[in-house]
């Protein structure tokens, strides 16, 4: 097939510059667009156009790079939100287990547990926020009110904020006590500090994504979506 790859490469590079979200997801989007563009160019050549003109027509029919990138913004933001929330849930036990081993009450009881580890209600709130967001952005959105990109990214901000608050609370309780710090305590403190660092980075990224998704949509099916 005689396609002018430089034109297609430049067009896809412009789209790539406007995509923000998980790297693997962006790579798959670009691979899919490239396949579609190659097919579109081939169709135009079959219809009798010279290769250079075929590429121009195919690119024009795909839409401006800004319009295409904007059209993907919501999906990429939701993908980022689901991935990040999943990360918080998956790594939560790696932090919580140390505090549980260190501070668990004797005898066990829910009230005594919350008194010993006051971050537990925050963990419950974070899990509830994550479960609700997963449901409203996944398969259950057929029956539940669908959550858009804005709501999904707010959920990430909320869960990251809860994680920071929970870690700071438990650190203040533990370091404020006069109890000696065993090696297990050092591990728990280090785990919470690492999560505070990750959560702070997450808040910065999520806030940037939120600003982007809050800008008016220029694309979809609008009149200015084509060159």
């Amino acid at each position, binding site marked *: 097939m005689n396609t002018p790859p430089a034109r297609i490469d430049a067009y896809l590079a412009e*789209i790539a510059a406007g995509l923000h979200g998980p790297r693997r997801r962006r790579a798959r989007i670009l691979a899919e*667009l490239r396949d*579609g563009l190659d*097919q579109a160019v081939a169709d135009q050549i079959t219809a009798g156009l010279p290769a250079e003109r075929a590429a121009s027509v195919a690119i024009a029919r795909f839409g401006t790079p800004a319009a295409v990138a904007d*059209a*993907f913004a919501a*999906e990429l933001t939701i993908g980022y939100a689901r991935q990040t929330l999943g990360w918080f849930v998956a790594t939560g036990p790696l932090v919580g287990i140390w505090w549980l081993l260190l501070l668990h009450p004797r005898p066990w009881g829910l009230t005594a547990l919350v008194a010993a580890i006051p971050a537990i209600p925050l963990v419950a709130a974070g899990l509830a926020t994550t479960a609700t967001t997963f449901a409203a952005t996944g*398969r259950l*959105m*057929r029956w539940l009110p669908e959550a858009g990109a804005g709501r999904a990214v707010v959920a990430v901000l909320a869960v990251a904020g809860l994680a920071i608050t929970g870690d700071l609370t438990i650190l203040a309780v533990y370091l404020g006590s006069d109890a000696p710090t065993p090696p297990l305590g050092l591990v728990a403190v280090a785990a919470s500090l690492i999560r505070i660092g990750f959560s702070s980075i997450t808040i910065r990224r999520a806030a940037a994504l939120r600003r982007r998704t809050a800008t008016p949509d220029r694309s979809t099916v609008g009149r200015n979506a084509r060159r």
Partner: protein
Amino acid sequence: MRPELLKGHLDALLLAVLEPGPQHGYAVIEALRSASGGTLDLPTGTVYPALHRLERAGLIASEWQTVDGRRRRAYHLTPAGHAALGEHRALWDQFSAAVAAVLSARPRPAPA
């Protein structure tokens, strides 16, 4: 056709195009264009996200294939997608019949 008229119907249209069998994204969008006689002529690149959203909702599924050395993503309807398409059709029949009944009713001339 005004683009905003498509709002709320694009999901059903994409499901209907995929009903006969699996297709890759570009073929889906071209089928939409040709089946509508060119009336539904959306910028191709902006329709892919609608396919991704339908997949997230579990109404379609996709798999990557290698065709002539190129990676290609093919979509197909899931059982939930078939059911959703049936619901969309029933709603559309009801809606379009109601709108047609109102629009086709012409006022009778007032008696002299």
